């Protein structure tokens, strides 16, 4: 579903992605972790070309993301993206937020999009908040609306860029629960997160990045109990302590 082949990216002189080779299969849940500045957010943002890559091949759902001629709008419609800061549209209600892209990109009728929106918001547990504005919702609720916004496009892939990092601790679980349900339904997911409990429980594979490289990738049992790389061990000892 997602294939990185010898992908490189630079921010000026900074080599943020250094020879990334990675495949994510259909229905797979991949968790990406690593110290800050390791390139994990950049990597996930490359998948729908919020960031362009400079070298190598990146193929998503059969489309060449590295190729300038690729119609990214068509591909982006198939990929839901959830941001750390939610990025809900503040001038729209929850329902309007989730129904915008279906009506404008998919050209579904307004009524159909609204019905779908209600249904999906209900699914993430916000059936009673459809007419609330983002400012009236808690962080956890906002992030669930953001997930619903992605799901309303009926995407093939969902990308999560630190979806719980901006949340108060008591709101993290409500968001993770929605993501677990999604994984259970067989959604292809790439999740940048430090929630190692989530990784252990839900991920098919866990990858760790450091200095622009994927230094280790393994199924969670193996990743957590028997990490091969010294830097993986160091990282895990730091974040699993608390």
């Amino acid at each position: 579903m997602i294939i990185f082949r010898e992908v490189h990216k630079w921010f000026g002189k900074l080599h943020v992605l250094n020879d990334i080779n990675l495949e994510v299969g259909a229905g797979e849940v991949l968790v990406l972790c690593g110290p800050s500045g390791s390139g994990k957010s950049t990597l996930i943002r490359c998948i729908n070309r919020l960031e362009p890559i400079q070298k190598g091949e990146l193929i998503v759902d059969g489309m060449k993301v590295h190729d300038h001629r690729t119609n990214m709008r068509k591909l982006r419609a198939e990929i839901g993206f959830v941001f750390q800061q939610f990025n809900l549209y503040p001038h729209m209600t929850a329902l309007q937020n989730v129904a915008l892209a279906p009506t404008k990109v998919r050209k579904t009728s307004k009524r159909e999009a609204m019905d779908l929106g209600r249904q999906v918001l209900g699914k993430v547990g916000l059936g009673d908040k459809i007419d609330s504005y983002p400012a009236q919702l808690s962080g956890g609720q906002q992030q669930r609306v953001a997930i619903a916004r992605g799901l309303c496009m009926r995407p093939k892939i969902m990308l999560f860029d630190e979806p719980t990092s901006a949340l108060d601790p008591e709101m993290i679980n409500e968001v993770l629960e929605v993501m677990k349900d999604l994984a259970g339904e067989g959604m292809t997911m790439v999740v940048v997160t430090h929630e190692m409990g989530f990784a252990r429980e839900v991920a098919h594979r866990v990858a760790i990045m450091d200095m622009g490289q994927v230094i280790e990738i393994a199924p969670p049992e193996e990743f957590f109990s028997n990490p091969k790389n010294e830097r993986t061990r160091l990282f895990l000892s730091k974040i699993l302590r608390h």
Partner: protein
Amino acid sequence: MWTYYLTELAHSLPFFLKGLWMTIAVSGISLAGGTAIGFAWGILRTRKNRFIDHLIGAWVDLIRGTPFLVQVFIVFFILPEAGVHLEAFPAAVLALTNLGACFICEIVAAGIRSVPWGQKEAATASGLTELQQLRYVVMPQAMKTILPPLVGQYVLLIKDSSVVSAIGVMDVTRAGWLTVQRVPQGLLVFGLVGILYFIICYPLIHLSNFLERKMGGGTTSF
């Protein structure tokens, strides 16, 4: 003596009202045109095209950095040398439209830049076209920042329109110039001129203040 002047002035009132109408016509057309062009330029300036950004930026700086009177003279007296002959009215409208566009462009660009980058990214990620992003996501939010200073700018432009009396446009200010030659009471005559401008501008000042209060208390995301 004062009664004499006041009667004279009262007789001139239709003349002033014609001038007022001319001021409204010049300002109205220029504000509409300047707003349309200003929005277009402002939006273009916030695109990722450096060349267009710098081109518009240079023009805006040039216009903002020179007196409006000089610009009006250039349009009316210098352009004919290049073969562009304009009557006073279209020359005035052209100069004022351009001036308005330059100021409004900056207001619009600042408004768009005030919308958090994440908004545009979220819209991009969901597959909206650039135009759809602008129309449904960016501009509705930018308008909150744009509207109060925009209306304030309208007030300034209406007052700036008095400069076009210098090339013979029969606006309120010119009506004042001509009347003061018959009624040599400057305070009285230009007091009336001032009052007529004030009548147009005062509601706009209040509108601007109202918008500022309304927009300031708007809903924000975080």
